């Protein structure tokens, strides 16, 4: 994926660039908002990662100006500030995700996948399928190998989220934000228990095991045989 990464701290910039490149992405970097905006407008990127506090032109301002010309490129914000209002502001300006610093690199990777995927999602899908697991949004039913599974409302939402992002890693924080709307991550280990309970219903009596733990990062749902 071709990524633009705008960050003024040279150490972070170098490490993240290296990390992303090692994961197969092509990364352009910019050290301030003005250069960042210029690059964003003159090239086509699959994703733009923006630091909020930038010299010349701050992240919010850059995004506002970018969105005047381009509403399709996904944007992910990184911020050391972490104020709730900043997050809301970023999302309102047209960002797709907002990650407070410091963050785990694996979290960044997971979110990059999720954000770029979001844009391709077809909202017309009423039935999500992974292997023999079926989630019917219209009928609000879950079936596996022909058997109907009894899920709670939250389990349904969680499974839907995992299936929509099938094959991608979703971090605990992402799950918390998406399903419960909690932007604090104090209880992220509670998610483990939720996943465990969901796994019991969806995977225990079936094969292959679709719900996988990605150590240190989060969870993913995918068909290992596909």
């Amino acid at each position, binding site marked *: 994926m071709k990524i633009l990464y705008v960050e003024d701290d040279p150490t972070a910039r170098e490490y993240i660039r290296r990390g992303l490149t090692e994961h197969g992405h092509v990364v352009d970097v910019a050290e301030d908002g003005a250069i960042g905006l210029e690059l964003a407008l003159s090239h086509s990127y699959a994703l733009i990662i923006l630091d909020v506090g930038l010299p010349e032109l701050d992240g919010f301002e850059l995004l506002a100006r970018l969105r005047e010309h381009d509403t399709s490129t996904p944007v992910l914000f990184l911020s050391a500030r*972490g*104020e709730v209002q900043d997050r809301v502001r970023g999302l309102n300006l047209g960002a797709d995700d907002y990650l407070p610093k*410091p963050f785990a690199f694996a979290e960044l990777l997971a979110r990059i996948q999720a954000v770029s995927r979001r844009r391709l999602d077809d909202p017309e899908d009423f039935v999500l399928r992974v292997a023999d697991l079926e989630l019917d949004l219209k009928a609000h039913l879950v079936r596996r190998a022909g058997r109907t599974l009894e899920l709670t*409302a*939250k389990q349904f939402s969680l499974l839907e989220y995992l299936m929509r992002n099938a094959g991608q890693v979703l971090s605990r924080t992402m799950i918390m934000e998406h399903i*419960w709307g909690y932007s604090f991550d104090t209880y992220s280990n*509670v998610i483990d228990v*939720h996943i465990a*309970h969901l796994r019991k219903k969806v995977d225990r009596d079936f094969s292959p095991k679709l719900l996988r733990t990605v150590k240190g990062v989060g969870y993913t749902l995918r068909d290992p045989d596909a």
Partner: protein
Amino acid sequence: MGDRGYTSAFVGRAASGQARASGWRLPIGAKLTLRYTAAIAVTLTVVALFVYAEVTRRVNREAKLLLEVEMRELADELRSAQSPGSSEVERRQVIRERFERLVRTSDPSLQLGVAWLGADGTPLLSAGILTDTRAPVPSSVLRGEETSSLRAVNLGDSYAYLAMAMSVPDGAVQMVLSTERYAENIARIREVFLLAFPIVLLLTGGAGFLLADTTLKPIRSMTQTARRISATHLNERIALTGSGDELDHLAETLNDMLARVEDGLSRMRRFNANAAHELRTPLTALSSQLDVMLERERSAGEYRQVLEDAHGRVHALSEVLDAMLRLARTEAGIAPSDRVPVPIRPVLQNVFDFFGPVAEESDVELHQGPIPDVVVMGDASWLHQLFANLVANAVKFTPAGGAVAVLAELDRNQVSVRVRDTGPGLAPTEADSTFERFNRGKQSQTRPGFGLGLPIAREIARAHGGDIEIERAGPGATFRVTLPIRTGTST
């Protein structure tokens, strides 16, 4: 900006205020004195002018009345003296006697003069001052067209006189009197005013200035006290005069403000001290670990292990930092403009759903009672955190087989949410310090978490205008959250 940064901004502003005060400026006392001295001056002038005008008017009227009365009597007598039977000489004699008596009995200062004028204006008889002076008389009176006239005239050496002429058959009678006496009186009044005016102004100005000074003395002492107070010297308070007046009220208000500022600053200091302490321990551990590793060559596996450890610790540290920042933010409260209506039911339901599986894993029964359909004005995310912290805490401290209940109750204009557990509860001594930050209680030493959950919860409750109290310390603790609800509508 840390504690020091805040303090220096404070001091900087105070210093610039000091610089301004040393420039030349009219003190309030002087301004006040000038103002009301001017007011008195204006009032005095108005009063003086009024008195002057009034006195002049009255004096003139008096003189006129006098003349009129005498004249009428005289004119009557003259008319009756014209009756047939008496000879011309007799008549004149009577009249002359009458004239002279009039002059004799009048106040010499009036310089009364009387004259009987013929139809052509020549005096036939005269007495008093009119014996050697003539006063003009309007011909219309002589001709009998007008019965009387009254006017001011100047006789000889510029003294002012009032002259009255009355028509009689074949002529007129004239009387004059001097208004000099009156003029003198008026002049004296004018002199008195002119002399008194500056003296009064001086006296009132001086006295007023002294009075203003005394009244404003407390302000000066306030200023001095305020100058002494600084971020490092916040415990001084402004003295009250005890008179209960506006200045005392101001002093009280300022003292209250100082108390609040002192409180805020000391909270900040405590927070910083706590933060430093909480961060130092894991950082020290990390530092020593890295030190040891760097002492000599290690294997790649060892390095990897240490890096992973360090990664974990850094993550833990940033979580502590986050929690502390969150606490600081909640202490700062919610800006009124950021408050939105938050229905309580979905918040509690969400928390209940969230901790369900965890409770199940710990073999703790989690249940909730009916939740009233009310709305709290505030921050949704914080309210979630508040209840999440309480429920997490309750589940954590309830042993297997126990239960945690979340019960909500509407109580007039507030909602009470009780989180009750069947755990061992808190010892009485622990109860007081439960909400102290970083306090973990005896039982929790082996469990994860850094003891900020409850202080954060309490600050959130307070930021919403409510509070948390330990309704029951145990065994089986009950935490009670009270939050004001939006009244008027409970949608």
